[in-house]
């Protein structure tokens, strides 16, 4: 009796459980699927971001150039000797036009000719000037020169890769014909874009380069590193090794944690109000940029340096104390060298953060249009992320390519920095 009862009850419970089990396992699968989907989404986004940037920017490392037969005719140039003074006023544009007319003798009419002239970059005369200044014996002679093509030509030539028609936004049918003709004869080619690495900013995409921004970034980072690393390490040493537990220390800790979460743009406001308006430091200078970024990266460096100090076991301190070292000697002779790898890792990560930062630098005027490479920390300068921001705003299609290329350069710097931080941690950090 009890047996049948039990088996009856058993089967009904078991049935219910089994019904429920199917549902629960389904839920389990869905839950797990959601987890996998989230991970996949994250990885997909990373892949998408990188392929998007690389596919947009890879073209910028090559720039279309036109081979022209240039005659350095003194009559056209309007000079009789080669020196710096006369070259400044020499008519190199005329020489280029002469050569274009010689290449396309059939072109007549004012607007057609203007169209023809616009194929060559407006920076080409300066290329020729530099060439002639370097080789004065060329005056009166003829040579084949590769000159940068205008950005519209460049865009059109590059778009031919994707479709037969090409993107003809600002290229007329006539010009497209010339381009095809030159392409066939090999007088129009894509060559490595050295200008991108050697020039400063320019309104003309084919002359715009990242050198000025790169040097500006370097100077800014230098100021940041020189200030934030010693101050951050000193602060960490005090808080970790000396500070008594009292209200004042608590206040400092709360402040550090809060500053780590303050939006970066607020640091820009601080820089504008205090460094520029109150102390009247120069605008757009890497010095001010470095100061602002120092304040911004300090919490990162302090927090990581404290972690590094904490990781040094107390036995080291006790042993040194036991040998009669003073507290300062314990810290500076024993604890600090052992904590250094961890601190350096933190500093590199802080610097990477500073290198990618844009918003606070906009506030202190580093958005100015700057062509010259800055020579010192008080010269006006811009930095790589701001340069990217400025180019991203430019309407020319050729700037999209250059923006992406600049992003590639920035990202490769960041990857190198982060990878070296990881390497340093693996290589030097000791497990106790």
């Amino acid at each position: 009796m009890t047996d049948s009862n039990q088996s009856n009850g058993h089967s009904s419970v078991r049935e219910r459980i089994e019904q429920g089990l199917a549902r629960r396992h389904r839920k389990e699968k869905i839950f797990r699927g959601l987890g996998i989907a989230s991970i996949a989404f994250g990885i997909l986004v990373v892949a998408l971001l990188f392929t998007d940037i690389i596919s947009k920017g890879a073209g910028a490392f090559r720039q279309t150039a036109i081979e022209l037969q240039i005659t350095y005719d003194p009559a056209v140039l309007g000079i009789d000797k080669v020196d710096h003074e006369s070259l400044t006023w020499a008519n190199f544009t005329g020489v280029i036009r002469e050569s274009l007319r010689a290449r396309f003798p059939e072109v007549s009419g004012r607007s057609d000719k203007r169209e023809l002239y616009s194929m060559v970059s407006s920076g080409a005369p300066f290329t020729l000037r530099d060439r002639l200044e370097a080789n004065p014996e060329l005056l009166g002679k003829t040579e084949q020169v590769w000159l940068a093509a205008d950005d519209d030509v460049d865009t059109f030539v590059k778009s031919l890769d994707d479709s037969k028609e090409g993107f003809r936004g600002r290229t007329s049918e006539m010009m497209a014909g010339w381009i095809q003709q030159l392409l066939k004869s090999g007088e129009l080619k894509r060559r490595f874009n050295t200008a991108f690495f050697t020039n400063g900013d320019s309104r003309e995409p084919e002359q715009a380069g990242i050198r000025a921004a790169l040097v500006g970034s370097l100077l800014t980072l230098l100021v940041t590193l020189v200030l934030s690393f010693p101050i951050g390490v000193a602060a960490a040493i005090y808080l970790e090794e000396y500070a008594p537990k009292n209200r004042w220390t608590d206040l400092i800790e709360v402040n550090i944690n809060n500053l780590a979460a303050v939006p970066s743009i607020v640091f820009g406001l601080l820089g504008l109000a205090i460094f520029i308006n109150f102390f009247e430091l120069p605008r757009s200078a890497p010095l001010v940029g470095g100061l602002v970024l120092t304040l911004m990266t300090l919490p990162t460096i302090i927090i990581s340096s404290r972690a590094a100090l904490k990781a040094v076991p107390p036995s080291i301190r006790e042993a040194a104390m036991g040998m009669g070292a003073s507290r300062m000697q314990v810290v500076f002779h024993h604890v600090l060298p052992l904590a250094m790898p961890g601190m350096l890792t933190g500093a590199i990560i802080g610097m990477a953060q500073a290198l990618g930062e844009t918003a606070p630098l906009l506030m202190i005027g580093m958005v100015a249009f700057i062509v010259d490479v800055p020579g010192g920390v008080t010269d006006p300068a811009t930095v790589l992320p701001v340069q990217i921001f400025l180019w991203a705003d430019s309407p020319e299609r050729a700037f999209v390519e250059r923006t992406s290329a600049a992003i590639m350069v920035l990202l490769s710097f960041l990857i190198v920095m982060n990878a070296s931080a990881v390497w340093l941690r693996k290589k030097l950090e000791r497990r106790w």
Partner: protein
Amino acid sequence: MQTSTLFALLLLLVLVAYGTGFSRAVAAARGRGGLRNLAALPSYYGLHTALWCGLPALLLLGGWLLFDDAIIRALVMNSLPDKPDTVAGQNLLYAQIQNLAAGHLLGDASPQVQAAAEHFSTLQQRGSVLQAALTLILAIGLGAIAVLRFSPQLRAREKVESVLKAVLITCACAAIFTTVGILLSVLFESLRFFHEVPITEFLFGLQWSPQMAMRADQVGSSGAFGAVPLFTGTLMVSAIAMFVAVPVGLMSAIYLAEYASARVRNLAKPVIEILAGVPTVVYGFFAALTVAPFIRETAAAVGLHASSESALAAGLVMGIMIIPFVSSLSDDVINAVPQSLRDGALGLGSTKSETVRKVVIPAALPGIVGGVLLAVSRAIGETMIVVMAAGMAANLTANPLESVTTVTVQIVTLLVGDQEFDSPKTLAAFALGLMLFLSTLVLNFIALHVVKKYREQYD
């Protein structure tokens, strides 16, 4: 004398002082039969003299460099018999004087200004001579005193260490100086702003058009400072971002912590963390040139109109940026939940997902909520993505396909470019900055509080 030469000279003096202190200590030790008869090692005597020589001189030089421009300006401006009333006019005049003194002003200058320029250059010359002289005298004098007052009983190490400790404390206080600096700079300008625009209008006004009229009859330049559209825009973009970041970040943290094998974890975690290292300007570019056109086309395909700069594009990309932030914070707290809780739940027969949902997540909830609040404060303060992808128009709208503007975007637009420091337009940026600072401060405070108060102690 150039400041850099002065620095170099000072450095040289410090080195000489170190050497003198060191050798005096060694000589004294030799006379007394060994180093152990000194109160400190010779290097501490060297450092002691070097500090006396270098530190006061350096402080003097620093102070001088900070304030000499302001002092010279005050002296020059006071020497002028009649000067403009407005600050802008005075600035202009002073710039003219400076240019004239530097010798590159074209055009004619009144004799008065010329006299001022001469006064300026003599002051500047005298100032730099005085600066160099005072610095060097101070360095040499104090260094010499330290050398003369040397005695083998001098406890040099203690003195050097107390100076070093003071330096350490000063560095530790940098965080407080920064906070005070932020508060002062934002607060003062905001108070000036609220003098001109009532605070109620700023907080509750529905109209934002900060262009001030240059002429009385100008159209559309009323200068309205109602910040509600900015607040709603910020909230909408942040909400979209959290809508993306929280589920994805949380689920990937759960999967990585509870399901994934060690290999998958070691592979997937760094890849997702790459997203945290990408600069925001890159996300902005991605949002503006890839995501926004995609959204516009998709919306057009289903018959909706999306503007080319939309809250949705900015919010989506911002959410992507925040994913690793949410996931790594949640990962930490999920890992902190003790294994025994999981084992208990599994032993009672619950499936893995039930364990996670009913045991692990509730246990980790305070930490997760804290992390999400920190993520919200980050979304509110994010600048570049919204500047590049959300637009400038202050629309009061609930449609994510329209362009909105945020607090940070307006700060950037108001402060980039030419600005005069007493127009409400510029000051408004600081008032917005104050709002931003306060709201992130409150969010951080709540986040820390939640974590502290509701954390369950297991160990």
